[in-house]
């Protein structure tokens, strides 16, 4: 029986499959379709210090093999999460992470501090890369200094597993991977969405109310794979791969490229059961190929010329 366990920071995941923030709600939305306890982990949607309404509709546009979104971090704020949502979802026997977003360093710190007290929370994923919010978000993750500032400040107040989710909308992703590692991140996850746009020729207007939005789905996989490969070469901390993963084959590609774990995002919209299917198919793959441990796959891409 193959061993699917993966260790990310201080957290041991039963398997390398997590669900991406913003695509799996708080888990409860998917209870009718699968057994959440089978997953390695779930990352609940971006949580900010105070309630946010998010952007005006239209917030999404379908694209070839993907979609654009500009949801704009709609959430009821960290206090509501702690008081009303966490008590219900802490029962899941999977590792729970919260994606943390903010417009200022202080806001990130406030949220991280409050979440630090939650016993059944495995860790947080720092969202420095959301491309939709005008103030903050994208501006943090595309500048080395602000990235450094946020990670350093949050690390001071958050003692459990700290994952930093990188933005792909930069010229050199490895620089940001190294900054996150330097400032004490336990892991990096990449990629967040790519900045894109869609136009309606009938109205001659952009489809999204915010004009630009984040691209996700199979369309981004080649870019995500490339970035995971590049970052895995320069950091020692585990890398979590995200970007258009629709099945176990995609997941294995990311692991060969260097990812110790992966996140399934947009695929959940097409098939609500996909995340658990990937867990099961990864196990089958290991057994079929007589691989004793999933970690044996990580970073074993033969990229010698």
């Amino acid at each position, binding site marked *: 029986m193959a061993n699917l366990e993966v260790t990310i920071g201080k957290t041991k995941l039963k398997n390398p499959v997590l669900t991406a923030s913003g695509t799996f709600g708080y888990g409860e*939305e998917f209870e009718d379709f699968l057994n959440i306890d089978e997953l390695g982990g779930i990352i609940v949607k971006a949580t900010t210090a105070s309630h946010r309404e998010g952007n005006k509709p239209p917030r999404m546009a*379908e694209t070839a093999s993907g979609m654009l979104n500009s949801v704009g971090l709609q959430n009821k704020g960290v206090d509501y999460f702690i008081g009303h949502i966490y008590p219900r979802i802490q029962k899941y026997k999977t590792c729970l992470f919260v994606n943390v977003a903010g417009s200022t360093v202080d806001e990130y710190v406030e949220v991280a501090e409050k979440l630090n007290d939650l016993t059944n929370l495995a860790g947080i994923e720092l969202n420095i890369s959301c491309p939709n919010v005008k103030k903050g978000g994208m501006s943090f993750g595309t500048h080395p200094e602000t990235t450094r500032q946020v990670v350093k400040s949050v690390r001071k107040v958050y003692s459990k597993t700290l994952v930093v989710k990188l933005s792909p909308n930069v010229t050199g992703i490895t620089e940001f991977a190294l900054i996150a590692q330097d400032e004490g991140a336990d892991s990096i996850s990449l990629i967040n969405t790519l900045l894109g746009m869609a136009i309606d020729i009938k109205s001659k207007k952009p489809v999204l109310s915010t004009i630009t939005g984040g691209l996700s789905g199979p369309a981004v996989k080649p870019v995500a794979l490339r970035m995971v490969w590049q970052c895995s070469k320069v950091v020692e901390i585990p890398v979590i791969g995200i970007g258009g993963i629709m099945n176990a084959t995609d997941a294995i590609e990311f692991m060969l490229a260097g990812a110790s774990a992966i996140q399934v995002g947009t695929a959940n919209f097409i098939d609500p059961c996909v995340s658990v299917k990937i867990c099961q198919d990864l196990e089958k793959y290991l057994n079929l190929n007589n691989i004793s441990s999933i970690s044996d796959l990580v970073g074993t891409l033969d990229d010698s010329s």
Partner: protein
Amino acid sequence: MAKKRIEELEIVNYEYLNKEYFTLELKSNRKLPDIHPGQFVELRINGHHHVFLRRPFSFHDINTGKNTFTLLIQIVGQGTSDLSRIRAGDTLNTIYPLGNSFTIPENGNYLLVGGGCGVAPLLLLARKLLQFNNTVHFLIGTKTKNDLIEIDLYKQLGNVNITTEDGSEGEKGFVIHHPVLWDESIEFDGIYTCGPEDMMKAISKYALKRGINCEVSLENMMACGIGACLCCVTETIKGNVCVCTEGPVFNSGDLKWQI
């Protein structure tokens, strides 16, 4: 509400009503769950790489004896066009039943207003209202008489009033112009409406002025259909809520429409 399912449903029948509209009858191998008027399904359409997301359709009719339900589909783009080329015996991967439903009172007199493919949920709604000893009137608006579909079916359930923009059938103009709305001798206990947003706003305004309850069914662009992604939100007095879970049916008074 019934637990949501994801299933391969068999296409047992399909019928082209005209160039633009067709119905699809889908059958489950398991006993169908409780399905309420106003709810919808999300269909996976495999065909083109730019038809990536599922497509939502309201339940149009149900046949519990045959364990089937029917969808009414308007061809508006590549996804629905691909769907129109399926054949009996094919299967469709379906997530259902989704969303909330219309309120079903008893012993009243109700007006069901539909524009274009907005008529889709009104057939099932009418059947359900009749089961609870209500009477129903239909008010259907289209661009031209060729766009009128299944009128004989509606006539079996209640009075049918028609408007066409070009006057080729019924009253000329929009539904809001139809005399049935302005006839003092007719009183409605409530209105249900589904169709273009401008039409629903006009009807909601009419209902508000008369102090009548009005329920609308919205059709926002959806990604997940199950309340996880927050892409399909609409503004209500309670803030932004998902049309796929808190809707698609809303009381018009709860929406932040300037009417």
